[in-house]
């Protein structure tokens, strides 16, 4: 399906990442946003609040992030494509509803414009330290998808993908920006609506009485309805059977939780989006994501100029983690170098996937600014050493 033109601001723009992300959501068909202001994410909802009256939809500023994170789930079951937007402290408040979205398979996009933590940390300065929180933050076993844009243009383009993935897989999709990407202004091209592909909700074709809300298709994902369609659905955060009714027993738990995790884990390779540069004959491969990949690219160029055989993998989709690709490369590279604006989160995944067949060199950074290319270069030299 093509995008609804009323939400698409076709043309060449000069936008920061927060504004571009908002335009991406509007182009993707997002028509309900509930949010609560927090630096450095606020501009996303501010733009949505000013744009949506002319597009046709609703913005509501809720009383806190607990409320906004569940208001959007209500919005999804009312039939709209939905998004909420936050940063670290707000993300921490949203955790219970990430679990609710996962178990009820409610499509939702959650934007996290990362800042330094823990706690109030560095409100106006960047970090990439929520990567593990979005993967593991809510209790229980579940899976999510996380994308990591590296420019305002990608904030627009990948946001459309984020909505399409949420609708396709019915999982929470995290849009992992950071303060620098959010506030950096660059050229953003927005294509005409008829050149933007959007995924419609998986509306059931079944009639009331035949439809079972949690009977999944071959891809592990059930079709959806909305409240008011006459299906008289029951949706619960309790473990449930295919009818959606509570089923408090180990067999039902096993069936449901395995399906919720398998629908993503078994599609890890299809979901992966890795931008690779010169990895084929590399001795050392730099693995990066988001803003750090731009600094890493400069370090890789310098290392190559110094005669080192260095490749670069930029993870556009960070979760599910593309462990298959790391595992393929591990036997033939000396080391992976993982720069990130945290003290070692995605590096742990690289290490796990490499499983001792290649070293992992962590280039941690506590946040507040981006790396110096020299820090990453030093890591590459050490790894090549």
């Amino acid at each position, binding site marked *: 399906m093509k995008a609804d033109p*009323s939400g698409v601001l076709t043309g060449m723009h000069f936008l920061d990442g927060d504004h571009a992300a908002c335009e991406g959501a509007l182009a993707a068909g997002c028509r*309900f946003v*509930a949010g609560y202001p927090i630096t450095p994410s606020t501009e996303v909802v501010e733009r949505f609040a000013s744009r949506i*009256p*002319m*597009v*046709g*939809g*609703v913005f*509501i500023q*809720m*009383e*806190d992030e*607990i*409320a*906004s994170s*569940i*208001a*959007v*789930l*209500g*919005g*999804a*079951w*009312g*039939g*709209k494509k*939905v998004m909420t937007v936050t940063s670290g402290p707000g993300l921490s408040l949203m955790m*219970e*509803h990430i679990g*609710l979205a996962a178990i009820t398979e409610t499509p939702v996009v959650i934007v996290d414009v990362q800042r330094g933590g823990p706690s109030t940390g560095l409100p106006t300065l960047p970090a990439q330290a929520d990567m593990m929180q979005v993967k593991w933050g809510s209790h229980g076993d579940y899976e999510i998808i996380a994308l990591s844009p590296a420019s305002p243009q990608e904030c627009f383009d990948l946001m459309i993908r984020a909505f399409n993935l949420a609708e396709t897989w019915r999982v929470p999709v995290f849009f992992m920006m950071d303060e620098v990407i959010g506030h950096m202004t660059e050229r953003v091209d927005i294509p005409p609506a008829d050149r933007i592909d959007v995924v419609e909700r998986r509306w059931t074709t079944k009639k009331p009485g035949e439809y079972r809300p949690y009977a999944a298709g071959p891809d592990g994902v059930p079709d959806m309805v*909305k*409240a*008011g*369609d*006459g*299906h*008289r*659905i*029951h*949706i*619960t*955060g*309790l473990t449930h059977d295919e009818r959606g*009714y*509570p089923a408090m027993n180990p067999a039902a738990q096993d069936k449901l939780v395995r399906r919720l995790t398998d629908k993503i884990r078994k599609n890890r390779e299809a979901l992966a989006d890795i931008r690779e540069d010169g990895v084929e004959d590399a001795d050392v491969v730099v693995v990066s994501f988001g803003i750090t990949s731009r600094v890493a690219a400069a370090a890789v160029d310098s290392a190559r100029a110094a005669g080192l055989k260095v490749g670069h993998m930029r993870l556009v989709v960070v979760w599910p983690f593309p462990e298959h690709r790391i595992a393929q490369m591990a036997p033939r590279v000396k080391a992976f170098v993982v720069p990130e604006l945290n003290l070692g989160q995605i590096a742990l995944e690289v290490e796990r996937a490499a499983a001792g067949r290649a070293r992992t060199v962590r280039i941690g950074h506590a946040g507040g600014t981006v790396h110096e290319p020299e820090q990453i270069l030093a890591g590459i030299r050490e790894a090549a050493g």
Partner: protein
Amino acid sequence: MSQNLAIAADEREYPVENPVIPYLRQERIPHIWCPGCGIGTTVNCFARALTESKRDLDQVAIVSGIGCTGRVAGYLNLDSFHTTHGRAIPFATGLKLSNPKLKVVVYSGDGDLFAIGGNHFVHAARRNMDLTVICVNNFTYGMTGGQLAPTTPIGASQTTMPYGNFENPFNLPFLADACGAVYVARWTVFHVKQLTRAMHEAISKPGFTFVEVLAPCPTLYSRRNKLGDGVDQVKYYKERSVVKHGAATKEVALGFQGDIVVGKFVDRERETWLDGMNAHFEKVLGPRYRRYGE
């Protein structure tokens, strides 16, 4: 039709099916509630209120939080959502704003709505969000075993207030009134007719409408406080209730086994959030505004 409605042969010419049955998800019965629990009575009244309202039931959604009362959503044959503890109101807010044709009813316990969920209640009432909130007030946390609730009267014992409660409870109608609810009523499960009428009025009136229902929790609250069984508690409601329509809500606070002022306290007009949004944007944005929700 359920088996416990077996009837004598000579009665078969009369319509004997319990009128509430079409409102229940029959395949989910038996329910989890204890014998003598008051929640079932409130559901009965709610089903009758739906009948009286003559609403298209496909356009009525029910949202509950977590607790014994939170299980109501799962037994009603409506689009029904059993959400997280305390968050039924913000879920309902999103549902209503996303699909404004729906009548959205929040049905939950006193702990759920006024302890963990208190902030959401306050703000939804302030906004005059078009929701009906029905609170089953049993003065306790039933589901978790009888702990202190924000409604527990001073002097009542609870597992986490083992020497008797010393902290001040909420006066729920006063709170709802102060926050801007357009309809506020209180009844008990003894007053089934009045409760049914209040529920009917609440779901028929646009805006944030609130009904508090006192209901016994014989298993935890009554037993711990040596108040007898469910019937004894209903007798107490009968003996000590005083009907005062239009009573000033600040006068209707409840004391331990004291008088219970019941009635319709507030019934006023205010623009709902969505009507306010449409009117405001139309005024300030003119023809550029795309009117929402019609």
